[in-house]
Each structure stands twice: as C-alpha cells, then as structure tokens.
C-alpha cells in the first residue's frame, strides 16, 4: 500500500486556487453566495468542512491560527480542527484573539474588536437565508437575482403579528452593502452588529452546500427590521461568574439537578484576558444560584 502524502494544509494547490478564486468573487460581490467545488474533507459534513476548506486555502506558513466553537477554544470541535491544522500545516496556533491572523469560528464572533490584519472564517451549515421560507434552490437564486426579499419581510412581520416581536434569536438575517440578504451563520443575533464596518475580512464557508460568501472589510451590514420594530441585541441579563463582565455573551451552565445555574462568558479568551488584567483569576466566584 502506498502511504498517502498530504500537502501543506491538507488540500492540494489546485483545489486551493479554485477556492481562492471563489473567495475573490465573493469579496467582489459582498453577501453573494458563490458556488464552489467543495471537496470531501476528513471530517463529517456539518462539522466545519466549509470553514476548514476556506482556512486551508488562505493559510500561509506565517499565519497564526485561532479556532473557536461557541466562542471557546477548548470545545471539542475547536480542539479537533485546531489539531487538524497543527498536523497538516504545522502553523502556530493561539487562543489569543489579538494575536491571531486567521480565526475560524463556529457560532460566535469574538468580543474583542478585530483588526485589518485579521480574517474571520465562519463555518456555515445552511448558507441560504431564504431556505426555510423556500426549500428550492432554483427559486431562492431567482429571488436573490431580483432582490425579491418580500417573503422574508412577510415572515418577520408575521413574527411580530403573532408574538409581538421578531422571534429569531440566531442566524438572524442581514443585508450586506444594501444589496444581498445574507445568513450570518447561526451566531446569536447579539453578534450581528459586530459584522458591520468590521476592519477584518469576514469569509463564510459552507462545505456540504458548496458555497462561499464574504463581507469585505469596512462594509455596511444591517440586520433586517422595521422602523417601528427596530433590531434589538439580546444577551442574558447577568454577569459572568468568573470575570464579572456584564457586556459579553453568556453561557448558562447547569450546576446541579435542583435548578442551580451560573453564567459564564462564552468567549473564553475575552474572559481570561479580563481576569488576568484584574488579577481576579484566583478568586473564581461560586455563583451557583439554587432556586
């Protein structure tokens, strides 16, 4: 048997070039979903194959990579993808948001503002924001071409009519550069405002659905809303039990089966940075709150 030999960052150079061409097109047409010939990756579809292909095709030997899932560097899938790039590309990795040049993420945007030297790569399960209103791709592509987004506004309006407010908490649709309606990937809508006028390039990869799309640096991104029902950010009303942050997105952690809960920062690097700055790392609060 011939032992397989893998290229730098796993993908062969032809494939990387093909993906980079798709990325260039995506950057040129902000928010537009560019089809690309997604490859079989050594991890399952739905586990970040799109993000991994985008990262693999833009990664250079000097890059410093950070991988997060749910905001955290130590969640299992983040560990797995980081190890994949350590193994196949040998690049330096970090958990520090500021130090990274490429950040691959699933479901969150870091709390710290990103800079021009950085690229944020999102893993996207369903790139089509209209998919749950119209399952057929032939239809949704026509709707995008005609900027026919009436169906989406009707959906948001029906939410308001039924519940008094827009009942979408994650994957909240946005309009990019006043043209394409785009799915921000299933990030909580708390993160939506961070996408607008961001200094970093934002790339979105969907492997199973074979699409990439992009938000170039300093591009306007608005969350869809109505004049009388403006977009609202949402975060749990609480403070982080570790660092005391009252502005970060929080995870709810169940501490027992009698109703005990505590809240901690979802962005672990943000939390650790705050703790080391305040020297409070040693005094982790026991914030279990039995009801």
């Amino acid at each position, binding site marked *: 048997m011939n*032992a397989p030999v893998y290229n730098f960052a796993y993908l062969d150079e032809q494939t990387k070039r093909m993906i980079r061409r798709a990325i260039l097109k995506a950057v040129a047409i902000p928010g537009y979903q560019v089809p690309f010939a997604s490859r079989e990756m050594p*991890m*399952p579809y739905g586990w970040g194959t799109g993000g991994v292909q985008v990262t693999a095709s833009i990664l250079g030997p000097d890059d410093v990579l950070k991988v997060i899932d*749910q905001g955290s560097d130590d969640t*299992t*899938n983040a560990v797995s993808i980081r190890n994949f790039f350590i193994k196949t590309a040998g690049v330096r990795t970090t958990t520090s948001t500021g130090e990274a040049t490429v950040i691959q993420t699933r479901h969150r945007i870091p709390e710290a503002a990103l800079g021009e030297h950085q690229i944020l790569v999102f893993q996207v399960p369903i790139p089509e924001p209209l*998919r749950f209103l119209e399952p057929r791709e032939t239809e949704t592509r026509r709707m995008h071409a005609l900027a026919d987004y009436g169906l989406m506004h009707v959906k948001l309006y029906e939410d308001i009519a039924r519940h008094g407010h827009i009942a979408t908490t994650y994957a909240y649709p946005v309009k990019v550069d006043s043209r394409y309606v785009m799915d921000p990937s299933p990030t909580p809508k708390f993160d939506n405002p961070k996408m607008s006028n961001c200094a970093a390039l934002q790339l979105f990869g969907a492997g199973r659905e074979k699409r990439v799309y992009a938000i170039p640096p300093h591009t306007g991104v608005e969350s869809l809303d109505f004049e009388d029902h403006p977009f609202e950010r949402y975060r749990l009303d609480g403070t982080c039990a570790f660092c005391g942050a009252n502005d970060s997105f929080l995870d709810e952690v*169940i501490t027992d089966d009698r109703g005990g809960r505590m809240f*901690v920062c979802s962005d672990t690097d943000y939390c650790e940075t705050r703790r080391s700055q305040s020297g409070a790392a040693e005094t982790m609060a026991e914030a279990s709150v039995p009801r």
Partner: protein
Amino acid sequence: MYVAAKGGEKAIENAHRLLAHERRGDPSVPELSLEQIMGQLRLAVDRVMCEGSLYDRELAALAIKQACGDLIEAIFLLRAFRATLLRFGASEPLDTGEMAVRRRISAAFKDLPGGQVLGPTFDYTHRLLDPTLQGAGASEPECAEPIGAMPRVTDILAAEGLIEPSPRTRPDDRVGDLTQDPLNFPADRDLRLQNLARGDEGFLLALGYSTQRGYGRTHPFAGEIRLGEVEVEFVPQELGFSVPLGEITVTECQMINQFRGSATEPPRFTRGYGLAFGHSERKSMAMALVDRALRARELGEEVKAPAQDEEFVLSHADNVQATGFVEHLKLPHHVDFQAELGLLRRLRSEFEQERAGASSLQEAAE
C-alpha cells in the same frame, strides 16, 4: 440459455452452492468466527439487532456472516427468525435515567451535572486512513468504566416547565405492536416509534436530513444523546412483581425542538425521541428528527413535507419490506409482460392505420 421451462430446481441448487463458495472466499484465509464479528464489527451487529428488532448479538453475528456482510439481508434473516419466536409478554418501560452511562453528550449546554462524557466515538477523529490497522496490532487497553446514572437533560428542563412533559404512561394502556396487528392510519406515537426503531437507518437519515434543509423544519437541538446499559424488567402474571430479565445496550436521543405555543398553551420546547439497540447514534438521532416531524399534525403544524407525512414515512421505512418488493422485479413477470406486449402491438398498429388514413385523406384534399 435462459429458456428455463424445466430444470429450475437444478439451477437454484447450483446458484446456492456458488453463493456458499463465494461466502467462504479463499480457503487459505482463516474463516471468520462469530466472536470476531461480535467483537470487531460490533456496530454492524448493533444495526442488525436494531432493525432486525431482536436483541441477540450472536444470532446477529451469524446473520451477518451468512449474508456475506449485506446488512439488509442479515436484518431479513434475523426478522424471519424472530417471527417464529413465542411471545410471552411486554417488558416494563426501560428507565434510561438509571442507565449505566458510557457516553453522554448534550449540545444544548456547555456543561451540566454528570458532565459531557465522550465515550467511544468516531466524533473528532480525522478521517485519514490508518495504515497501522492493516496488520495485526496490539490491542488498546480498556480505559473507561461505565459512569453510572446521571440526570437527563430533558428532566432538568422539565423541572422549569420549559419543555413539554413526556406523555404519562397509563398502566392499563396496551402498547401497540405492529408485528401483531396491521398498521392503521392515523397511527399513534407508540406505533410510529416502533416503526421508526425498526426502520431503515439510511431512509430515516435522509428524511431527518431533509427536515434540516427546510422540508419540514423543526429547529432541533441535540438535547442529549446517551449510550449505556439498562436493565430490562418483566412482570410475570403469576408473580405480580417485576423481575430483571437482563441488561441491554441502548442509545437514546432526545431532540429539543422549537414550538412557539398557541392561544391555550404557553411557548415551550417540544420533544423528538429516538431509541435504538446497541451503539446506534446516527439511527437514534435520525429517528428523533423524524419522530418530531411526524408530530406535525398533533402540534397543529402544516403538513407539507415528506418527513411529516405519516403514511409516506411509516409505509416505506421498513427495509425488509422495501428490499423484498424492489427486488421482486427480478422474478419472472412474463405472463403480465406478454399481455402488455399484445396490447402495445395492437395500439401501435391502430396508430399506424390512423396515420395512414389521415395522410391519404390529406392527399385526397390536395
């Protein structure tokens, strides 16, 4: 020649001898033992037990060997044997809350009582072919013990009323059994779940996947997946109290799905449920997605996608039925086919006559 007016018996006999020959393969290579299949192809054994709906590792291994590794054929063998078994009653409901857990994960919470326990899983392995597995290798020492019982995520959510309660079991309610009574529509959830538990993994996987892609969307979260051993208990009529029959391995998946409430009900999460023999995670997850999709009618949702259509799903989930009927097209059909041929020839000659008539009319007109 395929002109087999007589001699069918001899042909069948020869075909079966050939099959036995091919099953054995190269006689210089040692024959597979049932222990090897049970021990090293255990996920295949689990699938055959689950869809064969008979919990017997040894018989499932035998079926896999006899079927040359064709799992649907093995499931068929096991089902055919199961049908001959005497049925002496129904067990008590399994208490998966008391499971001796070997794997338990929740995608809905970062951490929870009992923790996230990965256990034996392909998750997070990189799918790179491992050449070290080609030859005989050293075995990995056992590194994990069952952890014991831990609270179920859905019970934690239920304590706050955030998820619909599981339907209460009424002791005098007989649990339906579609192997004893023909399936009628609309079917209750017990029969639906039984049908899905026996249903083809690939079919349920595709249907569950379709709900994720917008054909009957249910907004699922994997509330909890747990794998481990549970005790099966049975109440013999003459005793009047339950006695343990033994332990089985099961995989349970509880999906938590969105539901926004109605005029009479406060908003809360709904459930999709999957349970499978052995370590069958893909199966139990797909089953939970399809179970929730099939509850559309009960929850007042519009039924418009295939996965929500009870008759469509339940009538086609069984791979023994499906493979039988698809493959029956191999049987001789020449009597019907001859009748079709005769009709087709007649229709064609009538068509030709009409065309000839029409063109001569046209010539006449010109």
